[in-house]
């Protein structure tokens, strides 16, 4: 991989730090009126999810990380691994629980997800911003109450539990914002 110098640092650049691929979340030049310039970078370790700040001297360089984001279709879970397929090449990859993390709550078969590959292995799975999931369990809906007040928990087909309005019934299909985990509307 290419090396990147501090003047090429930017948000979203993927680099190797202490042996792990990291994403630059925030890049800020620090330059006192009198004195040397530094670059302060907020980094996210893509393996562990840890975020921290590291400071680089101007002109320092770091190795790029072979990290690629690619859209893939979710196929199935075999009890241990989650399987995805590249719709163009039909190539399949399997992601473990570590890579899938909390995203498993929003994975519906045949939905398209963004898979982050590091040296061709999946290290993280990002579901679409909005998913449509069926309610498998919730208290009966209240008739006539279509807009106002109150909420209740509902369990969705993936096992995720979200707060929904009182008028929602079992079997309804809901639109959920996966970034916040919140109910948006009936689909």
């Amino acid at each position, binding site marked *: 991989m290419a090396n990147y110098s501090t003047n090429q640092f930017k948000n979203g650049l993927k680099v190797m730090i202490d042996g792990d691929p990291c994403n630059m979340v925030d890049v800020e030049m620090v330059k006192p009126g009198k004195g040397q310039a530094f670059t302060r970078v907020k980094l996210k370790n893509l393996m562990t999810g840890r975020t921290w700040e590291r400071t680089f*001297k101007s002109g320092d360089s770091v190795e790029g990380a072979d990290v690629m984001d690619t859209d893939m279709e979710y196929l199935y879970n075999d009890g241990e691994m989650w399987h995805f397929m590249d719709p163009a090449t039909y190539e399949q990859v399997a992601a473990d629980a570590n890579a899938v993390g909390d995203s498993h709550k929003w994975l519906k078969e045949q939905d398209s997800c963004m898979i982050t590959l590091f040296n061709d292995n999946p290290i993280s799975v990002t579901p679409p911003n909005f998913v449509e999931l069926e309610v498998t369990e919730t208290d009966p809906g209240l008739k006539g109450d279509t807009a106002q007040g109150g909420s209740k928990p509902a369990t969705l087909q993936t096992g995720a539990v979200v707060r929904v309005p009182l008028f929602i019934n079992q079997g309804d299909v809901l639109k959920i914002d996966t970034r916040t985990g919140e109910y948006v509307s009936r689909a």
Partner: protein
Amino acid sequence: MAIDPQHWQPTASINSLRKRAAIMAQIRSFFAERDVLEVEMPLMSQCAVSDPFLDTIEARYADYVGSENYPLYLQTSPEYAMKRLLAAGSGAIFHLGKAFRNGESGSRRHNPEFTMLEWYRPGLDDQQLMDEVADLILPILKLDSVERLSYAQVFKRFLNIDPHTATLEVLVAETRKHVDIDLDDDDRDTWLNLLMSHVIEPNLSDLGAVFVYDYPASQAALAQVKTDAQSQQVASRFELFVDGIELANGYHELTDAQEQKQRLLKDQQTREKLGLPQRPLEMRLVSALEAGIPDCAGVALGVDRLVMLALGADSIQDVIAFPIERA
């Protein structure tokens, strides 16, 4: 840097630009009332700043179109030229205009082309000039007062170390506690600067507006060096921080021509050691000091940052119509 044809719009709102213009007018009337003369200094010079940590942007000039061209340097501050005016008997002067610094982008507080207010007051020292800086900025920022802490006091308060006497090893160890950095450097000032920018400045933001004064003698730049009450050699230099943002830098100015010459030559040596470009030194400044410059204090203030603070903007790009990415 890529040019995006879609990015034709300014990054600052028209409303912000109106407020910016009002602050510029307020600055000019402040100095008019105090009988400080507005002067315009060359933005291009045959000489460049000596400071190893400032890089000048070069322009190319040809005596006639098509002839061989040679470099002119965009000024990083009007300081040298203004001191030549002071030596020529100008009295109190201010400059409100553009300054240029290479490589200073990629931050919410920097644009390589920025607006600098610089002024000089014969007969005042650094402490008295701090009063005047406060008189100017307090109404603009709608603040009541500015706290004053010495460089030693801020290090004592936030890190419990003495910046003047602490050994290199102590400074390195202290920095490593707070800053994740892979650095090998035997210059104490590098570590003091890291502690200042990474630990102290964020803490200063809780204090509102603060003058930090009496910097280490090794960071004197163009300030006089004096002995403080603790018999410590310190620079008669101050910086103003507002909400943790470095806003102004002032000196009780060096008037000793020989000392000035030594500092210019020393900077040039440092540049050589660091492999930085060697550019013509401003020896006319030395001549001006030899001819005699009044005892005075001077200060430079970042106007874009002042506007940013006055408007409560998060980023300098919010108060500049077309920052470098769109210029």
